[in-house]
């Protein structure tokens, strides 16, 4: 991540490739040692896979309408059925996953890699970690001001905060990212501050201080790398919440503008036809949201348990 690049001040003369591969292997073995984490990983990888290869996995575009076949159940032509406008649900579902996990549409033509939910959490992480580090390490009045401001933000109910922000700046993928970043920042800042308060009492921080290192170096090169374990696990859970939040916003009509495939708005539209005998349009995106969020939670929980035992 961008933050970690700061640690390059610790540049090494000896390449550490072998060490990195070993560490990856260690991480994987930790993951696979836990059944919970493995199930979570499989669920998450499934959605990442279909999102990445969405254009190959379906012949239809997510916006292509078929007037002849609205509100169909699963058929050979449309494996998951169609919605009220005859759009292929499978294709809408995986293009929806794409928006969540793989691309962030900035405008109609232009998109950048990294899904909306991922970006939302990443931006929150960047701001939250910086604030938490400053608060925790510097302490004093700066800490008081930052934390009280964040407390004030946390006192507003999350959904309300989302609604206020998106209503104020308009509904688009980028604005959803901004809203998620604002909502996510206080929690991450609190977590990082807590970790910092613990880590800053360690002797290696004293050692860095007696070496005359500047505050910036101590915060980002000495403290942050040691806080990354809990931060990564927290970030996984937060991606789950962010997907949930995207679903909620979409459902309330504040997500991505139509006709782009959005799980929340798919549920909202499909809901009207459940009693009319075609529940498919609402069912699939609900399952998608649930499985992805549950998958991320399982992954984070399993990882946390396993790393604790590992220590």
């Amino acid at each position, binding site marked *: 991540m961008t933050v970690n690049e700061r640690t390059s001040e610790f540049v090494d003369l000896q390449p550490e490739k072998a060490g990195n591969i070993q560490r990856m292997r260690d991480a994987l073995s930790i993951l696979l040692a836990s059944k919970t984490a493995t199930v979570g990983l499989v669920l998450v990888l499934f959605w990442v896979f279909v999102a990445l290869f969405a254009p190959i996995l379906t012949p239809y575009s997510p916006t292509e309408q078929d007037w002849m076949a609205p509100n169909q159940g699963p058929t050979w032509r449309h494996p998951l059925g169609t919605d009220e406008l005859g759009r292929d649900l499978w294709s809408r579902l995986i293009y929806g996953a794409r928006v969540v996990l793989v691309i962030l549409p900035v405008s109609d033509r232009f998109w950048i890699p990294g899904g909306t939910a991922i970006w939302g959490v990443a931006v929150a992480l960047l701001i939250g970690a910086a604030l938490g580090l400053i608060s925790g390490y510097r302490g004093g009045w700066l800490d008081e001001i930052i934390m009280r401001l964040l407390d004030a933000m946390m006192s507003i109910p999350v959904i309300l905060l989302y609604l206020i922000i998106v209503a104020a700046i308009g509904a688009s993928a980028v604005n959803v990212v901004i809203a998620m970043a604002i909502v996510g920042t206080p929690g991450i800042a609190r977590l990082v501050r807590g970790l910092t308060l613990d880590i800053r009492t360690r002797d290696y921080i004293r050692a860095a201080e*007696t*070496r005359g290192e500047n505050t910036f170096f101590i915060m980002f090169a000495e403290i942050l*790398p040691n806080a990354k374990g809990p931060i990564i696990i927290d970030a996984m859970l937060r991606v789950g919440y962010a997907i949930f939040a995207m679903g909620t916003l979409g459902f309330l009509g504040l997500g991505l503008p139509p006709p782009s495939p959005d799980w929340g708005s798919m549920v909202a539209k499909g809901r009207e036809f459940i009693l009319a005998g075609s529940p498919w349009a609402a069912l699939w995106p609900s399952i998608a949201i649930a499985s992805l969020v549950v998958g991320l939670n399982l992954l984070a929980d399993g990882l946390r348990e396993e790393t604790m035992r590992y220590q």
Partner: protein
Amino acid sequence: MDSEADSGAILAVENLSIAYKTRKRLLAAAREVTFDVGPGQTIGIVGESGCGKSTVAFGIVNFLGTNGRITKGSVRFEGQELVGKSQKELNRLRGDRIAMVYQDPMAALNPTVRIGVQLYEVLTAHREIRKEEARARSVAMLRRVHMPDAEDMMNRYPHQLSGGQQQRVVIAMAMLNEPALLIMDEPTTALDVTVEAAVLDLVEDLKRDFDTGILFISHNLGVVARVSDHLCVMYAGEVVEKGPVGEIFHHPSHPYTRGLLKCVPKLGASKSASRLYPIPGRVPAPADRPIDECVFAPRCDYSTEKCTASRPDLFDAGDDHIARCFYAEKVKRAGGSPLPVQKKRSASKKPETREDGLSCKEDPLLDVENLKVYYEQESGSLKSLLGMGEEQFVRAVDNISICLSKGKTLGIVGESGCGKSTLVKGLIGLEEITDGEMVFLSMDVAEPVSKRNQVVIREMQMVFQNPDATLNPAYSVGRQIARPIRRFKTVKKEQVYGEVVRLLQSVRLGESYYNRYPRQLSGGEKQRVGIARALASRPDLVICDEPVSALDVSVQAAVLNLLLEIQKIFGTSLIFIAHDLSVVRFFSDDVAVMYLGQIMEMGPAETIYAPPYHPYTEALLSAVPVPDPDAEQKHIRLSGNVPSALNPPSGCRFHTRCPRRKLLPGNGKICEIEIPPWQEAAPGHHILCHIPLEVLNEFDAVIHAA
């Protein structure tokens, strides 16, 4: 031995093997441990960390947790077999017939329950007894363990007691039901040396009165030498030697025991007259312990092919003394006290010819004058919130002057809370100093590290206490040593790797350590890396804050030797802080003794440890546990607690606890009123005391080696 087990012993442990289940496999933590505890007898178990001492203690009462279990052997307590008993049956015994005292008294006492309630609960839980009677007996027991104001203590909460008092309460709790067996697991490790001495006295005392068998576990040879009758030396889960205490100290028959005795500096030994012999390597992890070889063979000087081919049987060295070694006979003949016997110092012996050790006339590197570090105390009262209250200060360091010449070592000793850590934090610039002058390399350095000149920072580095926290776990060893080199540009960029390797080699770690991470190192190795990092900027002064106190003794010796060697090669000056008086004596040229933020006595090391003493130094020395059961040691115990640094006593700070003030007219009235003068006992040896030197000179030496 076995035949008498049923006759007299309270506890007979036979062939006890304990294993822990891990994710991979069953790990043996203790193997075929056999010993007996008779009534009124104290059995000491010594060994380094990870040798299975506590496992055995927990095994006896089956406190092994969910993953531990006894795989073999028997534990007979008063004739009944404990192995295989249900937890419910054991519960009836634990706390009643078998009592336990652990290392940390704060963790043994419930912080939210009054002392009195916790005490009489022990009685009411096990027998039908009226509450009033239970209470009365609790008070009596508190008196028995020499608690002042026993009645009042009953109503206090644990946090209102000092560490030593807490441990007394825990011991009182253990003794309430007059148990047949008392298991003490490192009961004094967390305590200061003077408090430790008092607690050990108490244990002796109780043993005499109650006829209780005691199983005493400690890593400290001095402590076990003081209290035990018999000794079991444990190594890597096995009892390697067992016998009467005197036998083991004078005729150790296992190389490990011999090694343990050789690697601790004796009190009074100095670096010029003696040396330490560390045991190479480290205790093998349970997974790496061989089953059919001698477990100690890889670290043993005596080992031959025979030792790795089969496991030695117990060798009977006579007098109830056995050792698990093929060469026990040979080791025993080699003798017990491998340290060169110190010539008895006469009090009149002149210290080395030095003009004036501490007033810094020649070649001063660091000159500190009247240093003060105060912390502002925020009281929670409304008055102080409104800014109307008086400002109160914790005088952590008050008016300290020290001086250090180039290439010398200054040792600072004192009990916890005496301000020695605050002093070094002030020196290194981590703590803002309130007042005073500090000149280092002829530069004024009386300011925090962030404002200091790069040169000053480079020339003054620090080694920390806790090996687990001294290195950043996120970076490899090489990177961490390279960082100060890069930062201070000690060498050209291309040479950094070579410089790191050179440093690694000078702390006896090879190039292969470059890419290792702290978690892959043992405590001693981490400490060496910490030393290498401190040396990386090629400083003139290295401050060592208890660099060996968290290490096992065999490793401690290696690190001390290393520091000595480095000092010889690089000519670095050292400030060495420790609470262990033997280590400080061994290591330092000059010693300063601190009490409550002030220096009480300072001078060349050899003068501090011989009369004339400051009364506080005398008390400290008489409390040091000496690893020699026959040594005669003066018995001076300080009463009361260390007063608060918030409101230090007037006059002499030590007057509230001074055992010698009655030597002065009017029972030392003057000590309460006037600050004592610095008296010069010998060139460079200063004592802050009212008692005239002639009187101080008449005191005997604290320790006479047998």
